[in-house]
């Protein structure tokens, strides 16, 4: 399997040859920053295109097909258009908080994006409390959304932000607890170690029923966490116009849009990393030839394929289920998912303590 640390080592060596010692680290940091920026932008734009195409196929339409082959350049064109639109400052907004909100939303999603292991040797931040860091960072986004709604001085925004806050903090619990269940199983919080432990079989298969339940709960809570699908009542178009970003225009709005799609990617890749083996190929113990064949497929491709499957499921939710009401939404979380999660955690602990797993 191709190891990306070969590339990074090569870049490091070249830089050391050409540059004085003190500049090497700075250049590397700038390179890392550029990689993050490019990756972030491209993934978000591709996801926007995919979403529109998938949505169109679900509704028997063609979707974007004019700009570029198969409409591939549509979302790029949209982004450039958005860049050249005026940033309207509405009267009576709390100007400081109004401008701060996009920063917080973007910071939260970029930081979460930064600690995902994409492929063998391709990982930026690798804390030994990686999972914990991920949960912590991705919950900062709520603050940005609440600020956006509050500072806009608009009732639609305020209601949207309040709903979004209630929904995201509620489902944050389910995400945290189902990840906690898997941390109990793996015994570590470092994302690279979690992936390495799944070399012989993904946690979804090795963890018996508790892992399966945790995966389903995670998918539901993850969909709610990204304010999508049947849980999109913070920005329910038919009642709140656009929810918390009603007053944002041009690129300001673009950031909320980008962050929403990136959050979907982050949720899908965390599901991939923790339940579906990250970039690890599908290995079945004992089947040597099969395992060797699977190793031929590059790890980055494995990661992207798994994430694509999870993202497709999340999009499928969106175009299949009708929107929930807020009381149904909170009941689903507090009366169903949370008790299920607690019982599931206990089951998983029993599985681990009495060593019933594979």
């Amino acid at each position, binding site marked *: 399997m191709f190891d990306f640390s070969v590339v990074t080592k090569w870049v490091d060596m070249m830089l050391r040859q050409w540059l004085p010692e003190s500049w090497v680290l700075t250049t590397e*940091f700038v390179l*890392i*920053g550029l990689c*993050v*920026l490019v990756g*972030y932008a491209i993934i978000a734009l591709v996801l926007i295109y995919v979403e529109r195409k998938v949505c169109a196929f679900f509704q028997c339409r063609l979707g974007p097909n004019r700009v570029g082959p198969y409409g591939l350049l549509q979302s790029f064109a949209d982004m450039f258009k*958005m*860049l*050249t639109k*005026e*940033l*309207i*400052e*509405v009267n*009576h907004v709390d100007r400081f908080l109004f401008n701060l909100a996009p*920063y917080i939303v*973007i*910071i939260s999603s*970029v*930081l979460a994006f*930064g600690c995902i292991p994409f492929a063998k040797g391709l990982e*930026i*931040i*690798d*804390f030994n409390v990686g999972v*914990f860091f991920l949960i912590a960072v991705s919950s900062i986004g709520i603050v940005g959304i609440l600020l956006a709604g*509050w500072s*806009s*001085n*608009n009732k*639609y925004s305020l209601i949207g932000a*309040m709903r979004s*806050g*209630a929904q995201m*903090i509620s489902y*944050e*619990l389910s995400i*945290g607890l189902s990840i*906690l269940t898997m*941390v*109990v199983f793996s*015994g*570590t*919080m470092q994302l690279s170690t979690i992936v390495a432990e799944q070399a012989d079989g993904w946690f979804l298969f090795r963890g018996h029923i508790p892992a399966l339940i945790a995966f389903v709960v995670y998918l539901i809570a993850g969909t709610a966490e990204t304010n999508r699908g049947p849980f999109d009542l913070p920005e329910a178009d038919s009642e709140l*116009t656009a929810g918390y970003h009603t007053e944002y225009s*041009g*690129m300001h709005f673009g*950031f909320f849009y980008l962050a929403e799609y990136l959050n979907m990617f982050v949720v899908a890749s965390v599901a991939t990393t923790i339940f579906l083996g990250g970039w690890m190929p599908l290995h079945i113990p004992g089947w040597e030839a099969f395992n060797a064949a699977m190793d031929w497929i590059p790890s980055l491709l494995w990661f992207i394929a798994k994430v694509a499957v999870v993202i497709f499921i999340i999009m499928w939710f969106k175009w299949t289920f009708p929107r929930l009401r807020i*009381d149904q939404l*909170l*009941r689903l979380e*507090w*009366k169903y998912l*949370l*008790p299920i999660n607690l019982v599931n*955690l*206990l089951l998983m*602990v029993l599985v*681990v*303590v009495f060593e019933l797993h594979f």
Partner: protein
Amino acid sequence: MNLALFVVVLLTAIALVAVALTLSRLLSPRSFNKQKGEAYECGIPTRGRSWMQFKVGYYLFAILFLMFDVEAVFLFPWAVTVREVGVMGLVNVIFFVVILVLGLAYAWKKGALEWK
């Protein structure tokens, strides 16, 4: 090293927003119109202030969230060492969780989980 990378990614995020907003301010056209600054309200002037008292139901859920989120924070260190602490640790943690579940049951019975 990880901390340095964390700072790098953080600065990248800030740079992304700052650069894109500056670019947008340079590129975008600008026009001044009194109507433009009004809050979006389907063309009708806003009645009253928007910064007002809000439904207390959201606050209740925030409190409940706080309780269970702190629980999750306490459980993470235990989760990493489940194999070492074994059955004794499990009993202690069950004791801890049961107290919190009693709290949830109380809230449930009091009707705090209903949306009114």
